[in-house]
C-alpha cells in the first residue's frame, strides 16, 4: 500500500470501529442494558477520526455528550466503554459517569461533558499547563455546533489567542442541536469568521472527507503546537435522532437521505476501492471489527453492577474522609436521642 492508502486504510478502520461501536450502544439500549436512554450516537460524524489521527500520543482532548466516536478513534477499549454505558463496575468510570461522562486519563481523554460547552475551557487549561511546563503537547476541545452559541466558547477562544496556547477548538457541525437546525440557532454560519474575530486561525472542512479532515487537522494541530491556537469545524450530518429515543420528526426524509448520502465511511471505502483495495478485504476487516464489538457488548452485558457502597467513594480523594451516609447520620442522631 502507498502511504496515502495506508493512511486512508487506517482512517477507514477507525471509522468502521466508531460505527460498529455505536451500533452496539444502540443495541445495549434495545436490550434494556444501557444505563438510561441519554445515548448520543456519532454515526455520520466518523470523519472526526481524521482529527484524532492527527493528534500525537501525548496530546489530550475533551469531548461533549456525543463523544463515543472520538474516544473509539483514540483507542478506547470497547468493552470498558460499553460497560460504562451500561453502568457497570468495570466501566471506564466505575459505572458512575456513563455515556456522557466517559474519560480516560491514560489516553489523554480529559472527559466527556454533558453540559453543552462545559469542557471547552478545560482544554484551554490543559494547554496552559503544557505551555507552563514546556511540554510539546496540544489539547483539543471537541464540541457540537450547538456549543457555538455558548458564551464560554468565545471567552475560551480569546484566552487561547491572548496567551498563545497549544489548543485546538474542533466543532462537529452535524447541522443540529437536538431539533434545532443550525441556521435556526446561529445568525452567521461562517463559524470560521467567529474564530478569526477572536484572533484564531479558523477553517471549515468537509467532515465527510476524512483525508481532508486529517490533512487540515495536521496543519491546525501543528500550528497549535507552536502556540498558534486554531479552530476547525467539520461539516457533517447527524444520521439519527438526537438521543436514542428521538425519531427526528422535525426534519424530513429527503433531507435525511441527502445528509446520509454524505457518508464519511462509504466515501472512504469507495476511495479505497478506487485506489485498488479489494472489497473482500474490507469486508473481512468490517467483520473482524463487528466480532470484536459483539464480544465487547457481551462482556459489558455480563459484567457486574457496582456495589452500592462504592457510591460513597470518589467524592473526594481516597485519603480523605468519605461523606457520611444519610442512614449513618440518622442512626447516630436517633440512637443518641434514644439514650
Amino acid at each position: 500500500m502507498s502511504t496515502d492508502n495506508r493512511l486512508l486504510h487506517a482512517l477507514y478502520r477507525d471509522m468502521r470501529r466508531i460505527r460498529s461501536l455505536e451500533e452496539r450502544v444502540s443495541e445495549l439500549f434495545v436490550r434494556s442494558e444501557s444505563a438510561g436512554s441519554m445515548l448520543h450516537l456519532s454515526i455520520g460524524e466518523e470523519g472526526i477520526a481524521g482529527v484524532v489521527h492527527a493528534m500525537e500520543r501525548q496530546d489530550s482532548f475533551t469531548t461533549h455528550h456525543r463523544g463515543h466516536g472520538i474516544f473509539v478513534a483514540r483507542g478506547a477499549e470497547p468493552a470498558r466503554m460499553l460497560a460504562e454505558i451500561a453502568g457497570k463496575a468495570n466501566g471506564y468510570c466505575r459505572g458512575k459517569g456513563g455515556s456522557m461522562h466517559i474519560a480516560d486519563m491514560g489516553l489523554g481523554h480529559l472527559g466527556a461533558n454533558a453540559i453543552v460547552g462545559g469542557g471547552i475551557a478545560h482544554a484551554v487549561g490543559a494547554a496552559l499547563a503544557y505551555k507552563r511546563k514546556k511540554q510539546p503537547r496540544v489539547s483539543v476541545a471537541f464540541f457540537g455546533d450547538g456549543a457555538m452559541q455558548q458564551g464560554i466558547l468565545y471567552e475560551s477562544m480569546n484566552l487561547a489567542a491572548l496567551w498563545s496556547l497549544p489548543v485546538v477548538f474542533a466543532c462537529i457541525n452535524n447541522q443540529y442541536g437536538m431539533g434545532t437546525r443550525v441556521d435556526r440557532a446561529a445568525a452567521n454560519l461562517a463559524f470560521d469568521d467567529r474564530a478569526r474575530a477572536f484572533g484564531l486561525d479558523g477553517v471549515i472542512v468537509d467532515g465527510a472527507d476524512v483525508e481532508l479532515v486529517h490533512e487540515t487537522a495536521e496543519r491546525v494541530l501543528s500550528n497549535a503546537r507552536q502556540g498558534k491556537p486554531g479552530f476547525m469545524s467539520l461539516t457533517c450530518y447527524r444520521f439519527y435522532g438526537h438521543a436514542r429515543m428521538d425519531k427526528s420528526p422535525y426534519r424530513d426524509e429527503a433531507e435525511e437521505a441527502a445528509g446520509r448520502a454524505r457518508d464519511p465511511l462509504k466515501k472512504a471505502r469507495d476511495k479505497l476501492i478506487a485506489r485498488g483495495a479489494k472489497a473482500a478485504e474490507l469486508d473481512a476487516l468490517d467483520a473482524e471489527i463487528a466480532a470484536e464489538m459483539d464480544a465487547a457488548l457481551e462482556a459489558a452485558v455480563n459484567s457486574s453492577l457496582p456495589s452500592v457502597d462504592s457510591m460513597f467513594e470518589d467524592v473526594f480523594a481516597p485519603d480523605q474522609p468519605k461523606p457520611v451516609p444519610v442512614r449513618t447520620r440518622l442512626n447516630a442522631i436517633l440512637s443518641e436521642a434514644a439514650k
Partner: protein
Amino acid sequence: MSAIETTYREALRQALIDAMNEDPDIVVLGEEVGLYGGAYGVTKGLIDQFGPERILDTPISEAAIVGAAVGAAMSGLRPVAELMYVDFVGIVMDQLANQAAKIRYMFGGQIGVPMVLRSQGGTGRSAAAQHSQSLEAWMAHVPGLRLAMPATVNDAYHLLRHALTLPDPVVFLEHKGLYVQKGTLDTAQPDAPWGKAVVRRAGHDLTIVTYSKMLLESLAAAEQLAAQGVSAEVIDLRTLNPLDEETVANSVRRTHRAMVVTEAHLTGGFSAELSARIHESCFDHLEEPVARVAGEDIPIPVSPPLERNAVPNAQLITETGLWLVQRKAPAWAL
C-alpha cells in the same frame, strides 16, 4: 364537571395554553420549546397554536435566554423561560440571582420582573451527575425569588397558572419523574391558595414534610407505616417561597414528631431550613429530633442501583418513621 384525569405533563401544558389564551403578553422561550415540543414534551404543539412569535426556540445560550427574559419582563411581556435541566442553572445564576431577583430592590421598587423560569430536576432516568440534581436550595436562598415545586397534577396546573399572574420572578421546578404521573385536574379548583401547604394525608403520630416527587415516596411510606400502626401526616409544601410554616407547625405541635424528606443532598439543602424552622417553632412539642431523610452528599451516579440509592425512597422513610415513633431500629442501625 371540570375535573379530568390527566398527567402532570399535560396539566402543565394546559396551564400554559390557558394562561397564554388569557394573557397575550405571555411568551415562552427556551431550547427546543417550539418545533421539538420541549425536551419533556410540556410545550408540545404550542408553536402550532401560538406561532413562533410567542413560542421562541432559542440557541443553546442559557445566560442570554434568562437575561432576555428579564429585559422582556421589564418591558411589558411576561416571559416563561425554560431551562431544560435545573442542572444548567449554574450558567444562569447570575441572571437569576443578581438580576431577576434584585432588580425591583436595587431600583427602589420602580419595576418588577414578572417572569417564570420553568425547569425540571431530580433523579430517575440514569441521566448522571449533570442532569439529575435537585438544586432548589440555591434558589431558596435568594431574596426576591418565588419558588414553586408542584407534586400533583392539580398543582402543576394551578401553581403554574398562579405563577403567571405574579408581579415577581418565580422559579418553577418540575420533576422529571413526575411528567407521566396521572391524577385529577380540576381547572376550576386549586388544591389550596398559592403559598399554602396541603396536608395530603392526615395522621397523628408523625409529621412528614416534603415536596415534589418525594411526596409520592412519603405517601407510600405513610401507607406502610399505617400497616405497622403508625399514623403519619404528610404535608406537601407546594411552594418553598412563600413557605407555609404555620401548617407545618400546627401539625408538628399535634404529632410531636417530624421528618423532612427531600431528594436534594442533605448538607446545605432546604431540608436544613425546614428542620431548623420546625425546631424553632415546635421546640417544646418535639419528642424526638426532626429527622432529615435526604439525598446523599454525593454527585448522582449513573448506574441504576447507585442512582436509586443516592436518594430517599419509601422504605427509608418508613424505617425512619418507625424508628422515630416506635423506637424500632432498622437494619442499618446496628
